[in-house]
């Protein structure tokens, strides 16, 4: 807190503290003093080697390069740069291709090359803490013997660093199944503008407060100097199958990709390489592929338990044949598969064999538009008479046309840019974005206004000014070169203040501002915008609720073949399920009262379900949001495509913000094909410890269940069991859900039985159909926010390895006070919902005692008297001041759902 106070004071005094600028020699002297002489580069010829990254678009050398060894040294470097009035630019391995690591305005370049240590690996919690300069491949080499991986696998991974990966929210061939970097970062440590180290969280899931971690990821070094990250670890699959499918054209291959996704398979990777891409790596990596004009390679990979994997692949290959694949070549051995992937990941870097330079267009479109886009690329290529090399993450809809050119020929440079321009324009028209994984940096900055409206630019700028008020960190990036983000943020502030001042005195405070009121229920986003604007003018608080938005509940854009849907925020979960079911798709979120809860409400509360183990949470599925800002302005955050690094990831900020930053009006989501088979296996356990021991066995096995839920003291009503309806009271049990190919489900059935037997537990009881639904309804009921007068709902989260202990503590406390306690806990994810029943004083005592021991005990619901006045969101977040600054910037008059959250 002291540190934060200091930064606040410095901020206040900033105008009076204009630093006396140091000359370069003085800065270098200070840096040497702080880091040692070997950790500072100052020779001009050496500094020039830092003037570019892998983009080679523009070059600018720094005044000094500092190589700190740890976070404390990095913070010291920032403080020196602050006192010298110099910019700070971070550089990992300099493999970025958007110019993100180029010190455009000089200053101190901080190389994280000596911050490459893996500080801790916690296999049981599936997480590791690493320094920012840790090389992605080094981390994975360290994890492989533990059967674990850091899933994001950008093509540069053998050199690129975790800090760089997270700054650009990097993707990679395997992100189709595993998600991009942001899905694998649990917390980030960074140096702020005052030279202080700040953690965005402690890595526990579902911590209270805004998602600063999600905001930091993809911010391209403009929010601070990233020094450490806590990353999520994923189990290595038991088996992998790779097939090289050859198509006669890139359009045919793209069409196959769209069909494969639409057919309900979710491969690990679907990667396309056209004949130029094949040519660049064919010889060097011994692929032995045909190189004829048009020939296009589709690399298909599936992974998981071995059972059923060949059958899944066979179905995919059948689709490929149907789409014109003329040759299918399996890569059988692990070495062969590794060679294919090394070759694939080397294509862009192998362009040196074909041309002196390339311009990489990094755009994402809905997958179904891929054939259209590829035809367009072909047309542009012919029109401009240039060679284009296509290599891309087809499964994600992430195109990567690389325009080959010679930078020494101005005409070729012009044509390369003309092609890039043409591709981006069509992409945006088709709902695409201008960067999927490489970032905006310098290369794409002038394209940003093509995608963002002026209001949206202002919103991005508003967040920028909070983190980077002095343009200290990586200045001159992301925003167009001629745009000053501070001016934009000021314009936004003026906009909000203006309309309030003009009308506030003439229009009385009005009841319409309570969105719960059915009378004034807005029927469209426009009406909602007007309503919020009216509240804003009146100075009335806005309290968004699902019920109040029920009229904004239509399907806005459903792309079944693309596995994405956009809906009005007022659509209920049941309505969404019904819509998806028509196309054999699901949203794997199991919560109580699906007929009542709305999608907007679920997103605002960041609700989770037992299947987060296999599918993730809403945080991972929300692709875009339409929000109504405090003054009624409508802004779109993100786009309905599965990868996007175009500006800041502001939708993360709104997921779980509980209506305190703006009203969520519509939601675009990633959805999933309904698995071919599903079974839930219930293992009764003599107690919590036995249950968690079994859960740990499952985690250590090669099984990939989608849920492993610890359920205690939970009523389960099963109607069609035997002759008569039965009500069970599950005292203590582990429920395991297996989904996917029937053979894979069968494997889970067999192996779980073995694991249970080895622990001396009763044989698993298999539930399917109605029984299965009943079990998960019962689990969801535990976490229902609608509570009886004698009930309280507490969410307890901790590092997964600590969850058993946290529950033991909670159960002991409840027992001591004579409280009933039902539990539904994501046993391997570190989140538990506790439903306590009893007298008000005991409920309050339970919550108080829990909160004294565990940082993340949240009182989500309970009797009025219990909630009043008490802190309900656990221990204060270390970066609360930053959250407050965000709240103050986005909602300066504090009218958005006041008092509803930590901020």
């Amino acid at each position: 807190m002291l540190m934060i106070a200091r930064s606040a004071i410095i901020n206040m005094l900033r105008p009076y503290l204009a630093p006396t600028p140091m000359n370069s020699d003085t800065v270098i002297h200070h840096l040497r003093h702080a880091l040692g002489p070997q950790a500072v580069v100052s020779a001009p010829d050496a500094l020039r080697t830092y003037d570019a990254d892998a983009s080679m678009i523009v070059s600018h050398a720094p005044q000094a390069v500092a190589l700190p060894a740890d976070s404390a040294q990095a913070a010291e470097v920032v403080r020196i740069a602050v006192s010298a009035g110099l910019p700070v630019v971070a550089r990992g391995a300099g493999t970025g291709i958007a110019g993100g690591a180029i010190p455009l305005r000089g200053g101190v370049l901080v190389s994280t090359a000596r911050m490459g240590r893996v500080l801790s690996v916690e296999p049981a919690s599936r997480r590791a803490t690493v320094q920012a300069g840790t090389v992605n491949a080094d981390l994975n080499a360290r994890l492989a013997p533990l059967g674990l991986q850091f899933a994001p696998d950008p093509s540069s991974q053998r050199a690129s660093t975790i800090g760089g990966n997270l700054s650009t929210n990097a993707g990679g061939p395997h992100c189709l199944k595993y998600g991009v970097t942001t899905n694998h970062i649990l917390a980030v440590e960074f140096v702020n503008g005052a030279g202080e180290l700040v953690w965005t969280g402690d890595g526990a899931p579902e911590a209270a407060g805004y998602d600063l971690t999600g905001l930091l990821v993809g911010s391209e070094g403009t929010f601070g100097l990233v020094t450490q990250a806590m990353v999520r670890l994923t189990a290595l699959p038991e088996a992998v199958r790779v097939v090289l499918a050859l198509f006669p054209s890139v359009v045919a291959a793209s069409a196959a990709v769209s069909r494969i996704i639409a057919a309900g398979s979710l491969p690990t990777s679907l990667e396309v390489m056209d004949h130029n891409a094949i040519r660049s790596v064919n010889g060097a990596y011994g692929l032995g592929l045909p190189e004829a004009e048009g020939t296009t390679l589709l690399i298909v990979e599936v992974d998981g338990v071995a059972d059923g994997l060949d059958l899944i692949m066979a179905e995919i290959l059948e689709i490929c044949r149907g789409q014109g694949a003329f040759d299918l070549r399996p890569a059988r051995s692990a070495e062969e598969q590794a060679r294919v992937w090394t070759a694939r990941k080397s294509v862009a870097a192998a362009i040196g064999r074909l041309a002196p330079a390339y311009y990489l267009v990094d755009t994402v479109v809905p997958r179904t538009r891929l054939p259209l886009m590829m035809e367009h690329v072909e047309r542009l290529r012919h029109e401009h008479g240039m060679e284009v090399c296509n290599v891309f993450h087809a499964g994600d809809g992430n195109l990567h046309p690389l325009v080959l050119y010679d930078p020494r020929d101005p005409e070729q440079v012009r044509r390369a840019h003309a092609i890039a321009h043409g591709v981006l324009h069509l992409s945006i028209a088709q709902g695409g974005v201008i960067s999927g994984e490489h970032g905006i940096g310098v290369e794409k900055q002038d394209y940003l206004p093509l995608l963002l409206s002026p209001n949206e630019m202002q919103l991005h700028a508003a967040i920028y000014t909070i983190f980077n008020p002095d343009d200290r960190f990586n200045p001159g990036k992301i925003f167009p070169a001629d745009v000053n983000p501070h001016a934009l943020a000021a314009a936004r502030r003026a906009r909000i203040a203006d309309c309030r001042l003009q009308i506030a005195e003439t229009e009385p405070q009005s009841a319409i501002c309570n969105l719960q009121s059915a009378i004034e229920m807005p029927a469209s986003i426009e009406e909602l915008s007007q309503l919020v604007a009216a509240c804003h003018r009146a100075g009335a608080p806005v309290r968004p609720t699902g019920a109040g938005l029920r009229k904004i509940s239509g399907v806005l854009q459903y792309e079944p073949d693309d596995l994405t849907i956009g809906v009005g925020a007022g659509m209920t979960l049941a309505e969404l399920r019904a819509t998806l079911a028509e196309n054999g798709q699901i949203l794997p979120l199991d919560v109580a009262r699906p007929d009542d809860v709305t999608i907007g409400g679920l997103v605002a509360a960041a609700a989770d379900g037992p299947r987060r183990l296999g599918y993730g949470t809403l945080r991972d599925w929300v692709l875009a949001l339409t929000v109504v800002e405090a003054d009624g302005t409508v802004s779109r955050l993100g786009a309905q495509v599965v990868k996007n690094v175009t500006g800041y990831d502001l939708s993360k900020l709104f997921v779980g913000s509980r209506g305190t930053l703006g009203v969520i009006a519509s939601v675009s989501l990633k959805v999933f094909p309904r698995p071919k088979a599903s079974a839930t296996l219930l293992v009764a356990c003599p107690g919590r410890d036995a249950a968690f021991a079994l859960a740990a066995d499952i985690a250590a096995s090669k099984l990939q269940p989608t849920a492993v839920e610890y359920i205690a003291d939970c009523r389960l009503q099963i109607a069609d069991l035997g002759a008569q309806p039965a009500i069970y009271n599950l005292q203590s049990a582990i429920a395991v859900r297996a989904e996917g190919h029937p053979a894979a489900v069968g494997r889970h059935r067999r192996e779980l039985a073995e694991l249970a037997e080895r622990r001396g537990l009763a044989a698993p009881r298999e539930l399917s159909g109605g029984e299965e639904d009943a079990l998960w309804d019962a689990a969801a009921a535990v976490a229902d926010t609608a509570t009886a007068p004698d009930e309280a709902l507490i969410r307890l989260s901790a590092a997964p390895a600590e969850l058993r202990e946290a529950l033991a503590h909670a159960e002991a406390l409840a027992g001591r006070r004579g409280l009933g306690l039902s539990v539904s806990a994501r046993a391997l994810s570190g989140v538990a919902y506790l439903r306590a029943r009893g007298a008000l004083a005991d409920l309050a005592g339970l919550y108080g005692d829990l909160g004294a021991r565990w940082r993340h005990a949240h009182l989500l619901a309970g009797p009025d008297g219990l909630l009043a006045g008490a802190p309900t969101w656990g221990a204060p977040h270390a970066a609360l001041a930053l959250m407050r600054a965000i709240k103050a910037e986005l909602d300066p008059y504090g009218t958005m759902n006041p008092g509803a959250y930590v901020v």
Partner: protein
Amino acid sequence: MTIPLIPFSGDDKPSSDIINTCVHCGLCLSSCPTYRETGLEMSSPRGRIYLMKAVDEGRIGLQSEVFQEQMSQCLNCRACEAVCPSGVQYGAILEASRVQLEHARQSGKIEPAEQASALSPQPSALPPRPLWQRALRGAVFGALFKDMRLFRAFSGSMALYQKSGVQWVARKSGALKLIGMADTEMMLPPLSGAATVPQGQIYPAVGGGLVSPRYSVAMLTGCIMSTAFSSVHEATIRVLQKNGCEVLLPPGQGCCGALHTHGGDLDGGRELARQNIAAFEGLGVDAIIVNAAGCGSTMKEYGHLLHDDPAWRGRAEAFVAKVKDVHEFLAGIELNTAGLGRLELSVTYQEPCHLAHAQRITAQPRALLNAIPGLELREMPESSLCCGSAGVYNVTQPEMAASLGARKVGNALSTGAQVIATANPGCALQLAGELRRRGEDVQVRYIVELLDAAYAAR
């Protein structure tokens, strides 16, 4: 006053085409030993190519201290080449850059005085190397390695030095430390007085004169291998014999020239190349076998080295076509596994750069080790990272060499193996020196020595 930049000039200029093949992707960084150690961009392959590009495009000159330092600091291990997606021939432009620097230094020798050049730098000359370095280079490159008789005599005197007790006195007294030779001295191998002298010997394939050999091969004896490691040669010959090979040691051959070409003395290297080509020509052998990784990679590049010499280009290419690393050769024929006895040993394999990177031979040495019954191969972390030996690097960059040696031995020891297997004299000396410094009881052995021991154990 602006000082005129010294550009690349004359023959043996680094090729602009090769320099421009680098697209600056940076994928080489993590494979580069000096980058791993320092984290400095200019100490990475990409950074060094960028420096060469800067000289090539006239933005900096050869007098740049950063350029000189980096061209010298590079180990030329060529790990970057092995991983470069664009196939940049880094070794070629590095060696050419070193030639450029060497030429500039030599022309500096004819400049009036060292002090003068320091005060008013001449545009076409670099400050010459310190006198002792020049003397050493002259003696080593110009005489010792060019004439094997001299070399053997020198080796013999070193053996005497070791046996006589002078070594013990020198070590104990700290005299070596005083003259900055302590680390280098530690690397000296325990030398045997005997040397393998190629005089046209023919070793028959095992099975006696009645069986016609499956293969007829000739072997390079080289310089240091033929003296310090003549026992390795003997082992190699026995292993080849056991595999149905008739082994010839043609006379007139000499040092492969690796130290010359890597150090910037391309002409010296060419002279030795011609000598070796002539010595091995017309033997009618199936292969020219070499058991030292560094020599093998140099010999395989004779074609490139003599590319501009019309009289020798064709002969060089014919020579190169027959050069086979001994592991490459043995793994490519049907290995005599029936004759291998058990070796109950845990072994970790240290990949010589000039085998793994320059020749891309990585699977064959492991296959041979795995063929030995009872032997357990344990992979070490960073097995393809250079051990820091790299020819004369120990002498020119002692600090970097020492830290890389320590890193390598640390990685090797982490496996708990009893033996570190390798295939190159520089690596063997570097590893043994570091192990001795640490007082570790771990053996360093050539793979052929282990094979030889296994055949003997039958």
